[in-house]
Structure formats: C-alpha cells, structure tokens
C-alpha cells in the first residue's frame, strides 16, 4: 500500500526532471557555444568580426559581414516570393478551393514540408543552377539560393497561415457577406486583417527556417565569401559558412565558427520571440471576439 504512494511521489519528480531537460539543453547550447566562441571575440574584436569584410582563416582574418549580407539577401529574397505565394495558397486552402481540390493540395503541402533539405539542394543543384547559369554568371548564386529557399519555406507559411485564417470566427465572415460584400472583399477586408497576427507569425517562423538552413544553401550558392553585387554572384550564408568549414577548422578558426553560431543563435532567438508574441496576441484577439 505504501509503495504506490512512493511511486506516485517519485514519478512526479521524474517527469519534472524530464520537463526541465529541454531548458537545460538550451542553456547548455548557449553556454558551450559562448565559451568556445570567446577566443574569437577576444582576439578578433566584436566590431571587426561583425563588420570585417575579409574572411581568410589562414591569414587570421575573420570578418563575417559577407556572410551576414549573404544570409539576409537570400532570406529576404525568398520571403519576397514565398509570402505572396504562401498567403495566396493559404487563402485557397482555407476559403476558395472546393473540398476535392483541398484533398490533394493539402497532402502536397505536407509532403513539401517533409522533403529533406538535401533533396531540395540536389534538385536545385542539377536543375536551378544550370538554369541560372544560362542567364549569366557561374550559376551557383544568390538567385539559385532564393529559388530553392522559396520552395523550402513556402509550406511553413501556407500551413500556419491557413490555420489562422480558419480560426477567424464564422460570424465575422457571415457579417461581411450579409452586408453585401463580395467573397473577395470579405477575404481581403475581414478575414486577412483578423488573422494578421497568425500570418505574421508564419512569416517570421519561415524567416527563422530560412536563416538556419545550411546544407541546401551550400549546395546551390557557390560559397564564395564575397559581398555579392548581383543576384547572379555566388555568396555564403552564416549557417552554410559553419557547415562548410567545421570539419577541418581548429584553434582560432574553430572558435570563429562558434562565434558565427552565436550570431545566428541571437538572430533566431529574436526572430522566434517575436513570432511567439504574435501568435499569443493572435489567440487572445480570437478569444475576445
């Protein structure tokens, strides 16, 4: 009889420990990465590291500005295409498409989510890169990265935006239609504004995914550490920069890669915190309605 109370007590503690582990991992990642990156920050200097334009580890030059620019360009470029496509597709799935179209379009989007990033990279490598090469330049380029990344983040935007459009109370839509609005006016003036925080969150999550993508970007962007001057120029991203060199880096060079990870980590934390706040605000707004 006593033993089951003992089990009850101890299992409570056990699951509590399990639950704290994810926070411990997060903390450990932050601590280890920070510790390993310290030599680089100290010897290179924060400003020279962030705004230096030369990355030549053999000469002790560690400036990551070209990679920051590469990451930002390819992410912003991909979002420029993926936002209209993704929100459009979300509206199609939530409001416009008849049941039968939805039935095969939704699994298609789910499959796009599941396709491994190396497969996107591979198809980009053999299909998109030669295509871009015909326009000019080496083919391995920001443009190729943007196209591949657009395909990769599209499903994130579609599925979260669709959910938030669906979460708008039916009464909103009925009210608008009853006032004589067309279906499109209802979508544009009522449903989209009501679900804007969820849509914004989907975009921000997509941004996080885009900045963190390493392998597919290595495969199609050429990886030159130069600030690109045209979309047809090759470039390297922050995440790609870590993956390209991690296997042979040592000493200060390795520390510099961890410093890149810190920059990436901070960017992601800021981006994700904004997304979390937006999603919470969205669910509050819907509670009030």
């Amino acid at each position, binding site marked *: 009889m006593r033993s089951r109370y003992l089990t009850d007590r101890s299992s409570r503690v056990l699951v509590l420990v*399990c639950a704290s582990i994810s926070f411990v991992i997060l*903390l450990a990642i932050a601590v280890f990465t920070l510790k390993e990156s310290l030599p680089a920050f100290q010897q290179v200097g924060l400003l020279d590291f962030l705004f230096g334009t030369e990355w030549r580890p053999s000469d002790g030059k560690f400036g990551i500005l070209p990679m920051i620019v590469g990451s930002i360009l390819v992410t912003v470029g991909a979002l420029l295409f993926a936002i209209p496509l993704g929100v459009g597709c979300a509206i*199609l799935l939530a409001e416009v498409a008849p049941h039968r179209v939805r039935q095969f379009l939704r699994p298609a989007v789910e499959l796009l989510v599941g396709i491994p990033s190396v497969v*996107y990279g591979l*198809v980009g490598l053999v299909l998109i890169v030669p295509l871009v090469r015909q326009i000019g330049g080496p083919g391995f380029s920001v443009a190729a990265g943007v196209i591949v990344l657009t*395909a990769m983040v*599209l499903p994130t935007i579609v599925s979260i935006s669709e959910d938030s459009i669906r979460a708008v109370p039916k009464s909103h839509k009925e009210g608008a239609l009853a006032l004589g609005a067309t279906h499109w006016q209802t979508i544009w003036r009522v449903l989209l504004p009501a679900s804007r925080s969820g849509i914004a969150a989907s975009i921000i999550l997509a941004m996080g995914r885009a900045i963190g993508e390493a392998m597919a970007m290595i495969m199609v962007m050429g990886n030159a550490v130069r600030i690109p001057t045209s979309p047809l120029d090759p470039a390297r991203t922050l995440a790609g920069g870590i993956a390209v060199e991690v296997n042979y880096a040592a000493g200060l060079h390795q520390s510099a890669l961890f410093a890149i*990870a810190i920059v990436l*980590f901070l960017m992601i*934390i800021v981006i994700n915190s904004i997304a979390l706040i937006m999603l919470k605000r969205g669910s509050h707004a819907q509670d009030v309605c």
Partner: protein
Amino acid sequence: MLRTSARSTQKVALVFIWGTGAVALSILLVIIGYLFVRGLPEIGWSFLTTPPQGGLSGEGGISTVIVATLYLIAVTLAILIPLGVGAAIYLAEYAPANRFTALIRYGTEVLAGVPSIVFGLFGFVLFVTALHFRFSILSGALTLACLLLPTLIRTAEEALRAVPRSHREAALALGATKWQTVWRVILPAALPGIITGIILCIGRAVGETACLYVTMGGSAGMPDSLLSSGRTLSMHLFYLAMDTNAIEKAMATGVVLVIVIVISNAMTNWLSQRFRARMTGGA
C-alpha cells in the same frame, strides 16, 4: 458601377489565388518528377544491398547507409521517447501555472527554432570532444535527440490533453493515485497520438543532415557499435552530390528518402485521424 468593379477585382484576385496553388503544386511535381525520372532507374535490389565504395568514386549502393540510418534512429528514439513523453506528462498533467512552467515552455519553444547546424556544433563540443564519444552514431543520436525533443514534447502533450477529463475523474474516483491514473489510464488512451508524434520525429530524423554532418563522421563502412562512425541517407546524398559525379546515385538516394517521408506522412495522417475519431466519438 461600384458593384462591377468589386466583381472584377474579385475575378483578378481569384485568378491570383488559384495561380499560387498551381505554383505550389508544380514545385512539388517538378521536385518529385525530376527525382523519380532520374533516380528510379538506378534503384534495384543490388543498389539496396551493396555497400557504397566511399571516397570520390560514388559507386556502389546504399546498404551500409540504410543500416546506419536505422541504427541511428533506434538509438535516437531510445533516448528521445522517455525524455519527451516524460516532459509532456509533466506539462499536461502536473505543471502548475507558474513562472517555472512558463520558463520550461519558453525554453522548449526557443529550442524548436535553433538551427540544426548550431545543434551540430553543440553536439561536437559536448558529445564528440568533451565526453569522448568521437564522431559516432552515439554522438549523432544524442545531438538528434536534443533537436527533436521540442517536436515530441509538443505532439505528445497535445495527445495527452486530448484525453477526456472523465477518464481522469473516473480513475481518481476509484482510488487510483495520480501516477496510476497517468500510467494506466491516460497514457494508454493517448498512445496513438504519441505514436503519431514519434513517427513525425522519425520523418524529421531521416531528413536531418546539418547536425549529423558535424557529429557522425560520415564513414561509409558498416557500423558495428555505438561508437562507430556512419552516414545517414541524407548525408550520403549530400556527399554524393558535392564530392562525386554520381548524380544519378544521389537522385536514387533522394527517391528512397522521399518514399520514406511519404510513408511516414501517410502513417501520421491515418493514425491522427483514427485518434481524433476515438477521442471525440463517445470514448
């Protein structure tokens, strides 16, 4: 007059909306179509059962790669499932609404957004270097378990929360302790939902590359222990595409990957539909 313009705007908008759907579908068709057209002819019994030659040749099949992938997934799940389900039980059944719980939730959500390559670096410092697990299946599995933890916690917690309140009340009224209720009543009822989450994790594990690229070493040989190096299907594809000219072999590996993902997606959909039906239809 205004009415007509509203109608024509609607027409233009709907054309755009259908257009975006067509683009999304054609992206999928192009990827899958191209992959299968070039990769499928390569796939046969010998491709699946011969080992890759490794190095720069790119010749051979994927037998050792399949074994390493399965090995990695088994070890990852052995680490991941107790931790993830335990955490989900705490969050769904025990967690009081206080700051500590909020902290745990925030930690889990942020962890979900940390890029794979950053997990890789972390695994490299902690598991490969500090704990001397070397570049190995064990290091890869530990790193991968960290990466997948938020996904499993979220899905398992949802599954536990979907179990009707009446189940808990009935068990407690019969004199069961809280843990007995959780272990004997709630967990079995939520099992299909939890399995859905696990399959989701397997799907992601199969597709993951960056964090393993830094922790598993990438040897093409047959893994014979937890501490031997290895490469998964995704890593193999990456090596083939970047270091060799064996693009057809890379395509074939991609086909195998996509087939695995399709199967895991179908299983998750089927299971979650059944689970939902059971939880909502008079359980």
